[in-house]
């Protein structure tokens, strides 16, 4: 579940207070997923119980949370696993990519590619159902399958866009290193 993993991702950059985690989480996700401070502390409590974070009191007696080795392993596992389709409505995928970028502990392009393989695989399955349904004449079922097809397509196309943006950024960064005299906004144009 991604609140857990999002908090681990934030903590992978360094120890933080519970309230700071809430603020960072909402800033990172453009507040599309409101999170109350109670949820944050409940989740931190479970993470602590599971040995994924440790809490120590700071000078003011406030708890500061720190990710453990087991926590880093759990986070790496999250980044390495495509999001299953049943949790898609929660935008876990968007959240995962946001924290893959921010935490700097994941290969974002690999996360995109793994997810795309999983998404296209699901799309293949739905398409096979559709091909079988074409001859069956159940129009309602066909419309339902079309809806699933277009949802998966939207996701795959968004992943294409993510990849294109990352590639452009990498080219721009490479050009800036090799040719610091060229303004950044022209660098990508010249290299393509």
């Amino acid at each position, binding site marked *: 579940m991604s609140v857990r993993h999002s908090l681990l991702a934030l903590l992978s950059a360094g120890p933080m207070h519970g309230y700071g985690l809430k603020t960072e989480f909402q800033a990172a996700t453009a507040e599309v997923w409101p999170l109350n401070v109670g949820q944050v502390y409940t989740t931190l409590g479970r993470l602590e119980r599971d040995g994924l974070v440790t809490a120590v009191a700071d000078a003011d007696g406030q708890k500061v949370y720190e990710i453990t080795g087991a926590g880093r392993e759990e986070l790496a596992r999250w980044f390495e696993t495509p999001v299953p389709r049943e949790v898609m409505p929660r935008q876990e995928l968007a959240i995962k990519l946001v924290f893959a970028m921010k935490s700097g502990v994941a290969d974002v392009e690999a996360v995109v590619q793994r997810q795309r393989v999983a998404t296209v695989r699901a799309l293949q399955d*739905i398409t096979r159902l559709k091909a079988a349904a074409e001859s069956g004449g159940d129009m309602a079922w066909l419309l339902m399958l079309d809806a699933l*097809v277009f949802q998966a397509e939207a996701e795959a196309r968004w992943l294409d866009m993510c990849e294109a943006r990352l590639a452009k950024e990498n080219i721009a960064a490479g050009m800036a290193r090799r040719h610091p005299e060229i303004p950044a906004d022209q660098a990508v144009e010249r290299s393509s």
Partner: protein
Amino acid sequence: MAVLDIDQAGRVFGSGHLRVVALDNVSLRVGAGEFLAVMGPSGSGKSTLLRLAGGLDRPTSGRVLLDGRDLAGLDEAGLAQALRQQIGFVFQEANLLASLTAAENVALALELDGVKPRPAMAGARGLLDSLGLGAVGGRFPGQLSGGQQQRVAVARAVAGGRSLLLADEPTGALDALTGESVMGLLRQRCATGCAVVLATHNVRHAAWADRVVFLNDGRLAGETGPPAGPECLLGAGQVR
């Protein structure tokens, strides 16, 4: 034995600081009756891969084997003959000859293989019938919709029992439902044992394939693997 075996193929254009690696050590095998889709952004090497597969271009490293035969071992005449007899091409535009009817367009492909005009025409009509295009056989391309033209182009590409069909963005100019009908036709050809390789940007169309491979910067970046069983549909089971 694979119909198409691309074995560690590379294709480099230019040299020195103008050197461009269009394809980098790519290996792919496509068996009889298999439908493979190749996806990737513009410039990722999809068209280069299809050109190598179709013998329209030669790799600068590695090999391309068609039915077990290395295309590099063939002279110009042998290559031309192998391509004409074994490979069908479909492009974004149907490119039917405007002065011939749909059936005559298909029959021409058979005549180029050495079939006499009358049996070629009979073969063309039979093929169009089997693809649900019997009614349009007597019409000229100008009298057909874009989707019908493209389906006739698929019929022409597979006429004569070719073992490999290469399709480069064949649905680019078609609406959603018509594009699906062309995919259905490709699927149908696979059922007869023809191997199909489709290059496309359209993930909905790629999903008709048995296997989807992703190219990025001329390298294979991932693939969906063989189809999952029905128990994997709609939800659980996508995660390896």
